[in-house]
């Protein structure tokens, strides 16, 4: 409870919050988003999807368990800035290898603590995600505001190339090898290959600019489109790649950004949500089984309801509230019929797509969790089954 250096946080609409410097002293800009997870700050910080975003943690205490060697979801911290209310002075956990603030400082992450994060969150909820600046070197909010307004916007941002791996790498199956998957890294999290590995999948992770042939050259039985940051409307390369994968009928699974890419590849629109879904308590209805899973979310964009416009709240979604298994209309695309397989029960946002005639499905949320519940882990089984079905029926003939 000792005094820290003062810091300010200024939103692009001019609202200002005062707090203290946390992590690195300096100045940073990004898109302000809030995350409601009560655990998993280390996973959040190292999730590449948060690239160029300033994350506001609604959980008031951050850093309680320090940081450890095994919970990183990538090789570094990606958030552009970090906003917390009460940072821990000590981390306490048997796996901890250091403190969070030391890690933030070491990686040059500028943060602010002592902020009324609830007021900030309510503001973002009402006004939408927006640009923000944090500074522990500037004391004049007006000067900082001017710089905030010069920072780039998230709409139209193509960020995959900034977060993708420089070199391909392989994550081996644990136990007996069953299948090979080529993952296009648009900002992949480490837990995806890990969940695949648990099912006997060897994953080849390839850089964002890779072609279909690069992917299939790994001997892949299937393709995985990873999560990642940015506006899917800019992802022309991955969308084209996805279309080619669909055309060749190679089994395809995508998560989050990968789901938006599949949506665009099928000809659907994508749009930016007001303030996004970021948390680990989001209820998603599996429209095939009628079951609800509690899931991990981190998305600011979503696939528009095919044929229904962008505002899912404005449409009545049959069955979404009644747990009943309601076969939704099959939407015809150039790759055959497609169904909305999952929706978020909070706001009816499209959370999953399933192709009927080609072996492809995606979800907008994070079955790999990390952080978050494991309710949707079954989707990796579905992926394995999809691959198994194809390899059995057709053999390995796509290359």
């Amino acid at each position, binding site marked *: 409870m000792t005094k820290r250096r003062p810091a300010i946080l200024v939103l692009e609409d001019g609202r200002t919050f005062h707090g203290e410097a946390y992590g690195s002293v300096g100045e940073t800009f990004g898109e302000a988003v809030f995350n409601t997870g*009560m655990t*998993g700050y280390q996973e959040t910080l190292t999730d590449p999807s948060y690239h160029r975003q300033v994350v506001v943690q609604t959980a008031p205490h951050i850093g309680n368990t320090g940081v450890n060697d095994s919970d990183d979801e990538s090789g570094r911290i990606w958030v552009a800035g970090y906003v917390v209310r009460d940072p821990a002075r*000590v981390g306490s956990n048997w796996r901890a290898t250091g403190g969070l603030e030391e890690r933030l400082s070491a990686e040059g992450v500028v943060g602010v603590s002592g902020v009324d994060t*609830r007021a900030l969150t309510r503001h973002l909820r009402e006004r939408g995600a927006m640009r923000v600046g944090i500074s522990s070197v500037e004391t004049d909010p007006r000067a900082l505001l001017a710089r905030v307004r010069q920072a780039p916007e998230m709409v139209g941002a193509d960020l995959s190339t900034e977060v993708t791996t420089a070199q391909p790498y392989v994550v081996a199956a644990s136990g007996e090898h069953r299948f090979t998957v080529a993952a296009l890294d648009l900002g992949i999290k480490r837990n995806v290959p890990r969940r695949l590995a648990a099912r006997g999948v060897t994953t080849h992770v390839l850089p964002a600019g890779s072609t279909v042939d690069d992917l299939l050259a790994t001997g892949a039985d299937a393709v995985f489109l990873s999560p990642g940051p940015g506006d899917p409307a800019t992802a022309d390369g991955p969308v084209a790649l996805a279309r080619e994968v669909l055309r060749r009928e190679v089994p395809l699974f995508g998560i989050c950004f990968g789901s938006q890419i599949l949506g665009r590849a099928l000809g659907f629109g994508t749009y930016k949500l007001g303030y996004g879904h970021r948390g680990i308590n989001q209820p998603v209805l599996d429209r095939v089984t009628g079951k*609800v899973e509690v899931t991990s979310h981190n998305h600011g964009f979503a696939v528009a309801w095919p044929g229904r416009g962008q505002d899912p709240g404005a449409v009545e979604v049959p069955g979404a509230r009644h747990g009943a298994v309601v076969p939704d209309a099959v939407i015809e695309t150039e790759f055959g019929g497609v169904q909305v397989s999952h929706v978020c029960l909070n706001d009816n946002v499209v959370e999953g797509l399933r192709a009927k005639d080609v072996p492809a499905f995606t979800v907008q949320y994070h079955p790999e969790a990390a952080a978050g519940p494991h309710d949707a882990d079954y989707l990796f089984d579905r992926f394995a089954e999809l691959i198994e079905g194809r390899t059995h029926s057709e053999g390995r003939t796509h290359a």
Partner: protein
Amino acid sequence: MPKRTDLKHILVIGSGPIVIGQACEFDYSGTQACRVLRSEGIRVSLVNSNPATIMTDPEFADATYVEPITPEFVELVIAKERPDAILPTLGGQTALNTAVALHEAGVLEKYGVELIGANIEAINRGEDRQLFKDIVAKAGVRLRLDDPAGLVPRSRVCHSMAEVEATVAELGLPVVIRPSFTMGGLGSGMAHTPEDLARIAGDGLAASPVHEVLIEESVLGWKEYELELMRDRHDNVVVVCSIENVDPMGVHTGDSVTVAPAMTLTDREYQRLRDLGIAVLREVGVDTGGCNIQFAVNPADGRIVVIEMNPRVSRSSALASKATGFPIAKIAAKLAIGYTLDEIPNDITLKTPAAFEPALDYVVVKIPRFAFEKFPGADPELTTTMKSVGEAMSLGRNFSEALNKAMRSMETKAAGFWTVPDEVVAAATGADPAGTTKEDTLAALRMPHDGRLYTVERALRLGASIAEVTAASGGIDPWFLDQIAALVELRAEIVDAPVLDAELLRRAKRAGLSDRQLAALRPELAAEDGVRTLRHRLGIRPVYKTVDTCAAEFEATTPYHYSTYDQETEVVPSARPKVMILGSGPNRIGQGIEFDYSCVHAVQALRSAPLGGAAGSGYETVMVNCNPETVSTDYDTADRLYFEPLTFEDVLEVWHAEDSSGRAAGGPGVVGVIVQLGGQTPLGLAQRLKDAGVPVVGTSPESIHLAEERGAFGAVLARAGLRAPAHGMATSYDEAKAIADEIGYPVLVRPSYVLGGRGMEIVYDDATLRDYIGRATEISPDHPVLVDRFLDDAIEIDVDALCDADGEVYLGGVMEHIEEAGIHSGDSSCALPPITLASSHVAQVRRYTEAIARGVGVRGLLNVQYALKDDMLYVLEANPRASRTVPFVSKATAVPLAKAAARIALGATIAELRAEGLLPATGDGGSLPAGAPIAVKEAVLPFKRFRTPTGKGVDSLLGPEMKSTGEVMGIDVAFGHAFAKSQSAAYGSLPTGGKIFVSVANRDKRGMIFPIKRLADLGFEIVATTGTAEVLRRHGIACEQIRKHYESGGGEDAVSLILGGDVALVINTPQGSGASARSDGYEIRSAAVTADIPCITTVPGAAAAVMGIEARIRGDMQVRPLQELHAALRAAE
């Protein structure tokens, strides 16, 4: 999957009297369930013997049976009501055990009643230790874990002491002993030595209805967590809340300081607990509803052990509901009738479904409230047997804020760190020798005790490191300790700062420190008032945030608030006239659910009060309370809920926020603050609030003083010519002795301004008087000791009455105590209408009560206690507030006294309330019709929860200091029936045959002859100690003679006879007088407590028991719903 259409009529089982381990959280959950079911168009029948519950208000069910929750009586209800189903998961272990017993007796099958919310197999799998162990291992296999067997402590179920010893030979000591099928961990404990083992395992085998205990590997010192889960019939599962215990394993979770959400888990570890919880829930097969699972986590390597699960709504689920805003009981009721989680809207957001997991952007701390001071000799060590009698919860935007708020919610002498000298805190714990060195203090941490956080703070302040405190405390997590260490550092800063500037003051408030704490550190600031003045001058005031289940992700529609020091407030301005109702804080002996009942009634009455004119209908009600167990802190109860400590500072700030925002909106702001319904807690704030400009309504603080200050009250009585026992006030032994000499022994001595008879004793001689004054350390001219002539063998009468501004008095009820005067009214049983009083007595009571009400100036409720001796009526005391008996009287007479009191406080007259129909048009509780049923209130005492450090039971003798935790009501046409029901409900049914052990004091021998003779005639075998046996034989009563415990001679003695379980009833009145009354007979009474045999300690009690036994032997017990009884009463008016 919409709701089932085949369920038209459901029987809800409540939890009965408040006991340790099962408190008013089940009224909260049951009330929610009843509301939900009725709103779904389902007929609801209800059984609950506790009259102080909201759920037993007749409007919450179609048929409300205030009858014992025993298989015998519930079967009578089933036979009469023929419900389609029973919902047993919202009434605690009592309801669940009763449901299991009904199933096993074939009653459910016989009447074709379905069990919903749980099935027998799941209950057994959850509660049976060995089955549960297998379940957990299976869940581990299902999750493909490496070491599924490691998910439970190594353990074995034992059915005899021989088995226990063999098991311990393998596992080694220490071991934990857990009896099967007991609630609140009753009978469980940790054995460090073979002696511990013999005692705890022996008791545990006896306490378990199936004579079964689990002996298991000790996980003492591991981190302890709980998850609250819900499952629907479509197998959707959500975790509503995680709870972390600050006190590591070894202290019952009910006795631990707990935090929500879990603070010291990484996501990976938390998700493992979640996976396990869900897997166990599925494996156990809880069909629908809530369930609670406890885990231990090894701090060294993260190994998880599943400790237990409760396949029902629990104390923790009430806490979780209040902590998150997710109403578990309400949802459980909906799930039980077939809804699924995604079909139920989230009450708070209205837009999102209940199928989600709440996210908190605040920290919740719960601290247990103990009552060791009530049980001298009880072992103060906290163990796996729950001993606390209540709890307070606080919310803050960080842990230290929530912690400090919870600590000042306790209403103990210390109101948070540093508010009283260390030695005072230490003395109150009963387990901390108040060492002044680091080493002494660390040593005091080794034994878990009440107030251990104070000891932790002292150790850190004296220079102990966090590692040292973790080690000494047996494993308190370093993160929690660092939070307290930060407070210690802040304290030093505050003490050392040249001035308390705005920056430092703001920082202190953000850490949760109260003005009183700051005043203690800065003596120059003219106490708490000085700090507040400074703070307000600097513009530092709390803001109010909202509990919204979603960390602000969605808009909340429910104004459920807590204070914090942050930037933005969320109080929505409202122009409606507002009334604040101050609740009663943590449950404790003497101040429990009865007061919450009155507060809830005030809310109900004021929300719907006709205001007339532009104001339209209903006040905006604002509830302030910090007790998570209660109905008052359900966000559905009042228009606005502030979950705040009931201290002057916190209440004043809520008033300011509501009043100023109301005025800013163009309204009148807060038009009244009601302090009379929440017991002594809010009453104690009355004068200061009024002085600060707060509109305290109802009886004025000055009038309260008139009743409570003995000299002023004496003058009121003298003016009206009312008799009172001779009395005086003393501030020293010499003064006290002078008074005693003048009025004659025995005298009743007590401190002024107390509730529950705290520190009250009957003194028979100078030596005891000297001893008493010596122990009354806080005696001062402001707080004198009252010395009253004690009226031996008088009949005690309790009256609850209403008085309005015109001085009209409505007699709510006249209750006649069954035990003679001298036993605290809260501990004695009583009957309404009075069973032996003449109408001339009642007329005199009416006259006296009217004179007191008018003389004091009561505007609302008044409780008066009288003693009738030799046909002369004496006033013992008067309390110008809602009393403990208000709910009992309301239920027995069908008149909502607290509602009327709230209306009177806001200006209504009794005549208006009669015209409105809130009060009967004519007559009152002093003029009940001749055919009115007899209601008997019986107190429930917690003796079997406590042991001395050597393992003996504590004394069960009753006296002027209140010891009961709760009460039941038996209601029937005749006294014997009503009394028998009250006994069945409170302690288990009176025996109808077998052996009765009798040992009475010389002065009681005359009075005892007739009742014992009647028992002998009824076929009981009588066993008596020498003196008693002689007298009985002289009256031709055959009896077996047995020696007292300390008398020499061979063969069995009284104690071993009782412990042997061969006795159906013990009648023992205290021998001698004064201090020796406590020791003689103690062995007998404590043996009765240990063996769980009813023990009667007074002659009138024995006479009543005889009538009850006769009623039971006749076997014509009937059950009648309150609705029927009340309709008959109203019709007879």
